[in-house]
Structures are given as structure tokens and as C-alpha cells.
């Protein structure tokens, strides 16, 4: 079952400029593994060298932060959408 993953602007260079891609998996962790398999350039931006999700990248299942669900074990169902929300600093210059 393919789930839609919304890609934020700073990470679109790693998904052939697509703003949404699809990945397969029953949990958020499986989806992200499939996503980084398909788009290997994303891996370094989402995970640190120990394979842990980076703390300046938040993953949302619909409008909920997975840190407050079951983290990467959070199950994903039909019609769910995953969002990757990295921190962005721009504003003044």
C-alpha cells in the first residue's frame, strides 16, 4: 500500500524536485526506510550516522507529530499522509 509523503522545499533536490512522493510500509519507520531506499540523497538529511531520526526534522502523520504517537513504530493506514517538516531559519537577509 503506497502512502503519500509530502516533501518540504529544502529536500526537494533529493526527490527529483517532486513535492510529494509515495513509499510503501505499514509503519512510519518502514515508510521512511522505503523512501530513503528510493531517494538515497535524503538519508543523510533525515537520519544521523547511527540511523536515528535527526532532531531538527519532524515527521507528522497527518497533523500529529509522531513523537507523541508511537514514534517510528506508528502504524500507517489507508489515506494517511506523512509530512517531513525540517527546521528553516530564513527571514531577514
Amino acid at each position, binding site marked *: 500500500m503506497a502512502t503519500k509523503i509530502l516533501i*518540504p*522545499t*529544502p529536500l526537494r*533536490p*533529493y526527490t527529483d524536485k517532486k*513535492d510529494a512522493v509515495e513509499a510503501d510500509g505499514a509503519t512510519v519507520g518502514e515508510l521512511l526506510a522505503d523512501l530513503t531506499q528510493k531517494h*538515497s*540523497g535524503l538519508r543523510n*538529511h533525515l537520519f544521523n550516522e547511527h540511523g536515528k531520526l*535527526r*532532531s*531538527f526534522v*519532524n515527521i*507528522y502523520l497527518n*497533523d*500529529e*507529530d509522531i513523537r*507523541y504517537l508511537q514514534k517510528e513504530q506508528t502504524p500507517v493506514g489507508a489515506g494517511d499522509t506523512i*509530512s517531513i*517538516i*525540517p*527546521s*528553516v*531559519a*530564513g*527571514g*531577514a*537577509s
Partner: protein
Amino acid sequence: MSVVFEKELPTLTNDEVKRYSRHLIMPEVGVDGQRKLKAGSVLCIGAGGLGSPAAMYLAAAGVGRIGLIDFDVVDFSNLQRQIIHGTPDVGRSKLDSARDRLRAINPHVELETYEAALSSENALKLFEPYDVILDGTDNFPTRYLTNDACVLLGKPNAYGSIFRFEGQASVFATKDGPCYRCLYPEPPPPGLVPSCAEGGVLGVLPGVIGVIQATEAIKLITGIGEPLIGRFLIYDALRMRFRELKLKKDPDCPVCGTHPTVTRLIDYEQFCGIVPAAKEQTPVSVQANNTEITSVELKQRLDRGDKLTLVDVREPNEYQINRIPGTTLIPLGEIERRLSELNPDDEIVVHCKMGGRSAKAADILRSKGFKHVLNLKGGILDWIDKVDPTQPKY
């Protein structure tokens, strides 16, 4: 509840009644709301993309006192989005330019300007006399500093951030709401997230986000509506879509949690992994000898007929603006996929606009077994300055 509830509300002069009549006839604002605005104060961190529209609307709306912090000078490349400044202001201090514009919009507003970089030493003192802090900065150390100072002082932070055509907004550091650290406990390491100067920004985008920040500041002061607390607004200008994500106050948050570990302002440059220049010098210069090339050296070697493969790792639209003759365009995001176009035994010079992206490209190439990779120091901008001044800079 309004952030100015403890203050005695000033009266409105006849001139002010005329000026604010479209507010006064709305029951949600009315005379009392306008008096709250007059009693209220907002400090804008940065008079740039976000601070420009925010400060202009706050002044027009009649916020009694507006503070601005900036230390920059107006540049031509600012004018595409920083609408508080005009063409005749290029070269002036942003604060002087902004002060003139705001005074022209509304002479009833008291303006305070601080020509300084926000720091751990001055932040608490600067924030103290204001009701709302409006974060319009452009870098992570100042964002974390602004957040922590707001939490420590109990001041709401009308937050906005932009990149290319996507913006984020929220209200942080209210009494029961989350703060920026609840959302992002740690910043990204330097270099992993591009800045606006590197990534570009759609000129109208900070207009939308800055005005959302100003809207939230006005709502906090008047105490009307539903503030953007515990909600993270994401705006995609290309798709013309707003999305809202839920934010929770993190009980383990190091600054606003139940057992905070950050109880005073820290060294935010260090927190964000930025090494002070003095300490960095020795290792970098040693390393630079083997991994970097200056534009003058590159020109000499090209003139000499040395066999060098030049690779431009910028995006195609940047390549259209200016280029080094004979270079091959392989954007950073494509380099891993297009390694077969390059010979690992050749001497390769990678370059971008200023040297940041090409340093990453050089690391990737070296990790893939490329033996002779040099990064063009200062990028194509340095090449134009030192070698080919006929080309335009951006």
C-alpha cells in the same frame, strides 16, 4: 487575554480616532482594542524580509511602540522583498531607512531602534520593555536565542520563517503553549540547511508570513480571536496551500519543560555548532592547502593549459546567470547519480556560488574514490571579483 491587561490604557486623540476609524467601528477591536494597541509594544528582530511588512502593518495599525533590531545596510538584492526599504535607501543603514518609512506611515507610533546584533548579553535587556517579540531573523543561533529569551522572560514570540516559496509561522513561548525548542530541540549542523542567500526566496513570501506574524502580534495585544498557539502553520506559495500541524508543549523541553536545564542564556553559536573564527583558523588553513584552489590560481592553471575538469554544482537557473567557461553543470543533488560522467583519476575543480555547496560536493566525490578534488574558494562570486568582472553577480 491581552498581553497588555495590566496596563492603564491611554486615550485616543481626535487625529487617532480619524486614522483608526476602520478599526473603531468593528466591535472586535473598537475603542478599547485600539487603546490596547496604543498601550502595546512589539520588538521586531530584523528589519529584513519578515520584519519589513510586519513593522509596516504594526505601525499602520497603531501599535504604540515598535522596536527594531538590525545592524545591516540596505543592498540592491534586498529590494525584491524588503519593502520597507526603497531604491534611494541602498547603502543606508536598514534602521535609518525603516525608521523613515514607519514614521511616514504613522507619526503617532513611538519608534526605538537598536543598531546591534542580538546576543546573549543584550537580549534580555532589549526584550524586557516589550509585550510581544517578533522573530524575523535569518539564522539558527538567533532563533534559539530569541526563543530562550522569550521563555525566560515570559514574552510571546510571533515566529515566522521562510525558504524559497515555503513559510512557517506559529506563536511560541506563551504561558501554556509550546516553545520553538519543543518543536526542534536541536538545530541542524551548519551547512546542512541552505540559507535564503543560497537557496533564494520568492519576494512575496515574506510578505505573507511577516503579515501573519503581525496579525498574531495584534491579536495578542488586543486579546481577540484564537492565537496561533500550539499550531504550526505551513504555507506553500506554489501550491497556494496552507497546512496546520499540531504542536505540543514538551514536558521534557530543556527550556520550558517541567525540569528545565537551560535557565539562563547560553552560547548559541556554540550550541548551533558554529566554531569561532579564531579557533578554526589553524586546522582549516592546513587543510585548505590540499583541498582548495583560489580563483586566481585556477585562472593561472587554465591559462597554462593544465588538464582540469571544472564542475559547477549550482542549479541550472544559476548557471544561466553566470558561469566559468568550460565548466560542466552537475547540481549538488544529482552528483551521486552522475558520477559516471566524471573520471576518478582526473583533477577536478568543483565550484558553486560561494563555496559552501561545492565543499559538500567535494566531500561526496572524495568519499567515492575521486583522488584529486579541489574546491574553488569563494565560488563564482570570487571568480567574478578577481578574474572576470564582466559577468553579473547575484
